[in-house]
């Protein structure tokens, strides 16, 4: 049977559908010295999309510090950054978004996001050992968002659990600004022996090019281009753009590729992720300064009648491109056969600088690979400060009474009337009446009941977070902590960003995201060493969005420089918009740190009755952008807290020094919900058996709501054994860091001054039930 297919004529309309501007088209003609054919147009369209080319973000990404001690692979060089951790080992890590596919099909979108980031890591010869994720959804009181949460968590769980890499932590926020455009950012970290590092460059003329893994179908056609457009109501019709993941296939690929990395049979590997065969072929050739020739007739297919355009652009999952050494073909083939995988030679490296694509011997595309990668267009977009900031900055805290809200007057944002009634009833021991005075007890319960703050056990208990038996801190601590078998060192990781802060002040928000992620890592006793980031923003063609992007990058860069944590890579996700507008600017940080002696780790929860509790750092009247204002008063206003980077660095060094001297029983960073929430969280180390605390706060001239709920930065709660009081206070004095001894760890009540007194059991119930209750369990 022969297929006859007439390629469509290149018309203005067709060029436009491919997202290529007139100027870009002229440039393509210039590069080729002729008009492109249909296949070539498709190739240019995906390679020059934002997702692959970073054409709108490159000038801003240059702002990030990329140099630092111990970097083996820097940002932009390979699939992921690599840092030397000593003793002959290195770590490779990266965070990447899969937002748009998850919006259309949450389960598969999230699953393939996890699959993609894992491939980025093992492609480099590193064994993936840790997964984390950073998620954003609209309010959990809406059914659509519950479905998103259920689907995304199900997808991550499906893929990560099956492939056997523990999902050890992450973060989740719920806010109307993410309605209809959830964010799914997946992080993966791998460990490798330094000599096993595999590059994605194609070197050596005559070396064969192998295709390995799943067969190619039409799934995900144009996925990269899809991720570079805004989501509209019609997006749900774009179903073909959704790929289906096969974690079992990827597990086989992973094991086979790692075996291959240890052999000396290959020169390079590249996964077929976004833009599939096109991207992997042209990028490896461009990096190796060589030409490449492939024949599509050799490509294993799952569907019949696929034309070259479709084969080149397909985003079928779990596929790899391997550049073998000439003469070692058998070694490569045997390793794949062992794992029941079929490696097919589809072409070879050529001298010169052309990528030539054949189909049954007929030339169907001929493009210089560098034209697709290094020479893709770069734009500096227009920027301007958004209007809404005038109003949010003008907010004055004195407009709000420094008193707890009466229980039911004005149902607080983010909770349903019913749930609010339940909380109030719990606090009062009876049904609330409209004339009831409010209490700070209720305010605290209301915050603990907010899904953004509440326990995430419903989520992480669906992830296998212990497989590989390296998870030393189970999810719930400030940072995830894993051991490396045979090493004294531990690896600490935190993902973080507060999108609301970035919305109200992207510069300060960007700074805080880096500083807080580093602080989380420092709280467990580790030294932050490097950063990967995933920059989720709206449409970059909107000057306001581009301004947010630029300012946030400036803030992150400043913090990364000060804290000595270079950016080793990541990705950019633009066009995160819903019909109402852009999402919060959400530059997710993945911070990695090293704990020299894992025996000196510091947990985040109180440990022993009678221990002294200290508050390190200074509290200000900083309620702008706080969860208190959002959840209790329904306000997204004010300026987020200010962050002093000099002090932050001093604090983090102090925390590491204390850990090293084994002075701390616990250390917990103060973040969303401020001191009162942080104190409550410190009680929940052991499910079903919460501890207590009795705390007195010295008069400081602050508002009561600030004392309890301000989100001032660079603050940490620590607990120490009584006998360490002197040595601890001496140490903190000599570091010139402000501190107060505020109380003691008790058995089962939380008492904060005269404002809050609640049983720990009730606090824990509220905290643990908030998400399951909304999910109908």
């Amino acid at each position, binding site marked *: 049977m022969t297929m006859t297919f007439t390629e469509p004529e290149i018309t203005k309309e067709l060029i436009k559908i491919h997202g290529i501007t007139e100027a870009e088209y002229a440039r393509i003609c210039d590069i080729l010295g002729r008009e492109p054919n249909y296949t070539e147009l498709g190739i240019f369209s995906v390679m020059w999309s934002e997702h692959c080319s970073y054409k709108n973000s490159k000038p801003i990404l240059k702002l990030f510090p990329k140099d630092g001690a111990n970097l083996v692979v820097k940002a932009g060089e390979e699939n992921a950054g690599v840092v030397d951790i000593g003793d002959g080992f290195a770590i490779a890590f990266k965070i990447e978004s899969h937002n748009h596919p998850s919006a259309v099909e949450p389960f598969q979108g999230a699953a393939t996001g996890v699959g993609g980031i894992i491939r980025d890591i093992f492609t480099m010869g590193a064994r993936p050992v840790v997964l984390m994720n950073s998620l954003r959804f609209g309010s959990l009181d809406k059914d659509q968002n519950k479905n998103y949460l259920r689907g995304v968590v*199900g997808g991550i*769980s499906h893929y990560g*659990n*099956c*492939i*056997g890499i523990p999902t050890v932590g992450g973060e989740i926020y719920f806010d109307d600004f993410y309605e209809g455009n959830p964010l799914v950012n997946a992080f993966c970290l791998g460990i490798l022996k330094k000599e096993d590092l595999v590059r994605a460059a194609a070197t050596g003329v005559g070396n064969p090019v192998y295709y390995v893994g799943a067969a190619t179908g039409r799934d995900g056609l144009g996925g990269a281009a899809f991720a570079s457009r805004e989501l509209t109501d019609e997006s749900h019709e774009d179903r073909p753009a959704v790929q289906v993941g*096969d*974690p*079992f*296939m990827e*597990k*086989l690929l992973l094991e086979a590729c790692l075996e291959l990395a240890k052999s000396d049979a290959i020169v390079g590997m590249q996964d077929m992720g976004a833009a599939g065969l096109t991207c992997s072929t042209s990028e490896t050739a461009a990096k190796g300064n060589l030409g490449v020739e492939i024949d599509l007739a050799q490509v294993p297919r799952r569907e019949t009648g696929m034309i070259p355009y479709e084969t080149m652009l397909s985003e079928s999952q779990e596929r790899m491109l391997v550049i073998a050494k000439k003469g070692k073909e058998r070694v490569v083939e045997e390793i794949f056969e*062992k*794992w*029941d995988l079929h490696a097919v030679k589809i072409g070879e490296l050529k001298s010169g600088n052309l990528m030539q694509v054949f189909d049954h011997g007929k030339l169907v595309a001929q493009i210089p690979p560098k034209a697709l990668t290094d020479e893709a267009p770069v734009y500096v977009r227009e920027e301007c400060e958004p209007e809404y900031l005038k109003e949010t900055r003008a907010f004055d805290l004195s407009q709000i009474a420094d008193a707890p809200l009466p229980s039911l007057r004005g149902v607080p944002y983010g909770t349903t009337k019913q749930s609010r009634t339940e909380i109030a009833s719990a606090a009062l021991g009876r049904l609330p009446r409209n004339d009831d005075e409010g209490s700070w007890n209720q305010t605290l319960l209301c915050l603990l009941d907010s899904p953004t703050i509440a326990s995430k*056990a419903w989520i*992480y*208990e*669906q*992830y*296998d*977070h*212990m*497989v*590989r*038996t390296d*998870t*030393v801190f*189970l999810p719930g601590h400030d940072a995830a902590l894993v*051991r490396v*078998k045979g090493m004294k060192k531990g690896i600490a990781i935190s993902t973080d960003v507060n999108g609301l802060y970035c919305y109200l002040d992207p510069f300060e928000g960007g700074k805080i995201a880096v500083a807080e992620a580093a602080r989380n890592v420092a709280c467990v006793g580790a030294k932050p060493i490097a950063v990967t980031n995933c920059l989720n923003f709206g449409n970059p063609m909107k000057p306001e969005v581009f301004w947010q992007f630029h300012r946030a990058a400036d803030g992150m860069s400043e913090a990364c420089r000060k804290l000595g944590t270079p950016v080793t890579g990541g990705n950019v996700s633009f066009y995160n918009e819903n019909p109402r507008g852009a999402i919060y600017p959400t530059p997710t940080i993945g911070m990695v740190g090293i704990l020299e002696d*894992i025996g000196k780790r510091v947990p985040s929860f109180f440990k022993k009755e009678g221990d002294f509790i200290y508050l390190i750092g200074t509290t200000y009247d900083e309620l702008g952008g706080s969860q208190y204002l959002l959840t209790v008063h329904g306000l997204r206003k004010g300026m987020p807290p200010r962050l002093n980077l000099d002090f932050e660095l001093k604090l983090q060094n102090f925390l590491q020094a204390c850990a090293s001297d084994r002075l701390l029983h616990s250390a917990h960073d103060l973040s969303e919900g401020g001191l009162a929430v942080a104190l409550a969280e410190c009680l929940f180390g052991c499910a079903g058996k919460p501890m207590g605390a009795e705390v007195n706060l010295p008069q400081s001239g602050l508002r009561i709501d600030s004392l309890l709920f301000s989100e001032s930065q660079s603050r940490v709660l620590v607990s120490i054994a009584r006998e360490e009081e002197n040595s601890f206070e001496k140490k903190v004095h000599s570091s010139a860091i402000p501190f107060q001894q505020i109380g003691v760890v008790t058995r089962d009540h939380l008492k904060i001054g005269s404002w809050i007194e609640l049983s720990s059991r009730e606090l824990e119930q509220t905290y643990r039930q908030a998400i399951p209750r909304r999910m109908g*369990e």
Partner: protein
Amino acid sequence: MKACVVVFPGSNCDSDCWHVLKDVAKSDVQFVWHKESLLPEVDLIVLPGGFSYGDYLRTGAIARFSPVMRSVEEHVRKGYPVLGICNGFQVLLEAGLLPGAMLRNRNLQFICRHVYLKTENTSSPFTNCLKHGEVLRVPIAHGEGNYFCDEQTLETLEATNRIAFRYSSETGELDEAFNPNGSLAHIAGILNEKGNVLGMMPHPERVSEAILGGEDGKKIWDSILSAVA
């Protein structure tokens, strides 16, 4: 002790079991690829957790046809101990080396958390270092651990003391509230007739070192060590 860990395509607790046998139980341990039809001379075979063949048809349903399974059956016939953990338990069920079958967890979700196990049998090679009623804290991590068998089989299991562990409270109380997955009679692990095959859903290899937050799992390795000594 000489032990081997069978690796199926999709096994993912194989290296965890290898590590615990080598570094905690201090035994001589090796991996055996599922395509091998001959097993090395060993005192213990472990079928590890994971998702053999992706668990795409039914958990363990395809793995049981692996060439290595014939040698495993042979080993069982000769009376050597075989331990199946999680997916390994599911493979043993599908292979008919243990009675019953697994259903999806009652709440239809994958569950990963620590649970409490009440020791019911203390005479097997896997449990001889435990006291009757002793409660262990061990994590589970599965989507299909809801054990089922017919009434007659259950009666036999009970009557012949072949239920090794049941899900319980911290104090050994049995109640649906402490049953994480809906398992029949709170069953977490069962033995075969001879007592030399144990299948259990919880993962003892995950709690055999203090740094991982518990050492209760060690008691199972200690039992095996004393049984094969």
